[in-house]
């Protein structure tokens, strides 16, 4: 007698970012997950689609003076100042643990000049366990008067090309939302060779303490993240996904599987969970579980059916 076929098959959650295959579309957002190990008690690191680590610069950076963060309505502002260990200590101290996890590690990189980006990418080339490089172009270009790379299509393209020239692994460019038209920069980096784009980085904002009449951040301005920015992020992902051929990774206020799948409908092939990790360090597990349940419940062949499947009349 034929045994009954039970619904025991795991749903197909695999997605790919260029040549990089992911077991599911859920990654961590840079700067919200440390170097991964901080979360080992709270989340199953081996189950993640990818671990995106804190942004790495050529030299170690101490970061900004405090206060560095302030809570705002349904969100938070941060001006951490890109504190990190620098690329060499990242490779020697952090990568061995990360590489042993068996999930792709995506290294977020940042610099003050095109050449600095190039040099970091050069040092990371060939390091075992690195699945992709994510280029943070929201940093100021010191050689061009401090204008953020990400706000100028030509500078963004130059950084992309410089990093791409050093990398065997896919290069993801993380776009800044602090521009008039995000699609212009998206197309510029695609043309310069980017394998994917991720968006959005934080929206620049500020908060003021009326009593002291001072800004709440020592840096005066900072980056807004959390649920407050989700509608803006969804809109930008939707716009970019319509004009580029490379995969788009959605970021911005994602805390649940529902949030994640909305980004996929808008055109994202994968997503990053950011600020939610601070409140619920097990957030990524919850998002993966929720997506798996949805795919099963809807009897979908694959989670990929969601990508760009938004119904616009």
């Amino acid at each position: 007698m034929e045994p009954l076929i039970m619904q025991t098959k795991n749903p197909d959650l695999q997605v790919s970012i260029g040549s990089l295959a992911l077991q599911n579309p859920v990654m961590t957002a840079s700067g919200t997950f440390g170097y991964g190990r901080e979360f080992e008690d709270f989340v199953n690191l081996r189950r993640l689609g990818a671990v995106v680590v804190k942004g790495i610069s050529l030299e170690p950076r101490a970061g900004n003076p405090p206060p560095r963060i302030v809570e705002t309505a349904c969100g938070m502002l941060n001006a951490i100042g890109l504190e990190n260990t620098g690329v060499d200590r990242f490779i020697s101290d952090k990568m061995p643990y990360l590489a042993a996890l068996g999930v792709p590690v995506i290294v977020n990189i940042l610099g003050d000049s095109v050449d600095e980006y190039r040099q970091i990418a050069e040092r990371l080339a060939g390091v075992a366990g690195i699945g992709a490089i994510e280029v943070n172009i929201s940093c100021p270009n010191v050689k061009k008067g401090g204008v953020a790379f990400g706000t100028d299509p030509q500078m963004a393209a130059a950084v992309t090309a410089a990093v791409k020239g050093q990398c065997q692994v896919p290069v993801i460019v993380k776009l800044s939302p602090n521009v008039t038209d995000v699609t212009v920069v998206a197309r510029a980096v695609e043309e310069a060779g980017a394998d994917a784009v991720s968006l959005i980085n934080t929206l620049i904002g500020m908060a003021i303490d009326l009593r002291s009449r001072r800004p709440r951040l020592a840096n005066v301005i900072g980056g807004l993240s959390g649920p407050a920015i989700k509608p803006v992020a969804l809109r930008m992902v939707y716009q970019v996904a319509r004009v580029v051929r490379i995969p788009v990774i959605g970021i911005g206020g994602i805390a649940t599987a529902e949030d994640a799948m909305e980004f996929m409908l808008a055109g994202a092939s994968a997503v990053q969970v950011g600020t939610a990790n601070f409140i619920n360090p097990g957030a990524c597990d919850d998002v993966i579980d929720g997506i798996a349940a949805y795919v099963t419940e809807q009897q979908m062949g694959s989670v990929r059916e969601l990508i760009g499947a938004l119904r616009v009349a």
Partner: protein
Amino acid sequence: MSQFQQKVELVCSDRMTEDVVRLTFNAPTIAVHARPGQFVMVQTSPGKDPLLRRPFSIHQVTSEGYLQILFKVLGKGTDLLAQVRAGEQVSLLGPLGNGFTLGLPETACLIGGGMGIAPLLFLATRFLQQSSSDNVAKKMPTVILGARNRTELEPLVDDFQELGIDVLAATDDGSFGYHGLVTDVLKKLNLSPSAGIYCCGPRPMMAAIAHLCQIENRACQVSVETVMACGMGACLGCAVPLKAGGYTHVCSDGPIFEAEKLLWSL
């Protein structure tokens, strides 16, 4: 590391004064792993505003698995927490941070100001447990506690006296104990040179005590409070400056620091 994210039951909520609240949770897993000076991150409501958890030092743990926090209602988050009722579930993350390094009880001087008294009760309890296991006459730490007035201070002093510890009390308005600052009480004490300070309170108080200890070349551990988003070393939002330059992180390197390592002149 042994850190946990758990939904736990609020066993009781005590209004100590109009705006000071003590919450008791049934949190055996976190309680059994907790050391004095460590903290928990508490979700004040399940919604998105306020978004972030709030850090609270662990006020007391019991062998039955209860864990207490003590706080003053200062804003939206603490106001929501004060309204949680017994039987309701609250999400805790912890125990987090390093905790105090314990010396000998007879050479310990605990100094707390305001809500900074919270972690010192747990610390005092641990000192007494340590001394009773020494199988000799119970050795008591010296305890100095200060607050604005009698209403705020007296119930907290009572907690220590129940343990059999005499407390040197000081209030800003003179309504209970010494009229003045805990630092004045400390100066008059003639503390043995080998006694170490364990201190938690408002920044000016800790700065003054750190300064005094530096002059006397006395060991001093302080419990530092800052805003923080994650409590576990990920956001790097809780940086405080070091005397030697650069920053340290309250959540993962602290919240307990040797006072001499920190930059106090801000």
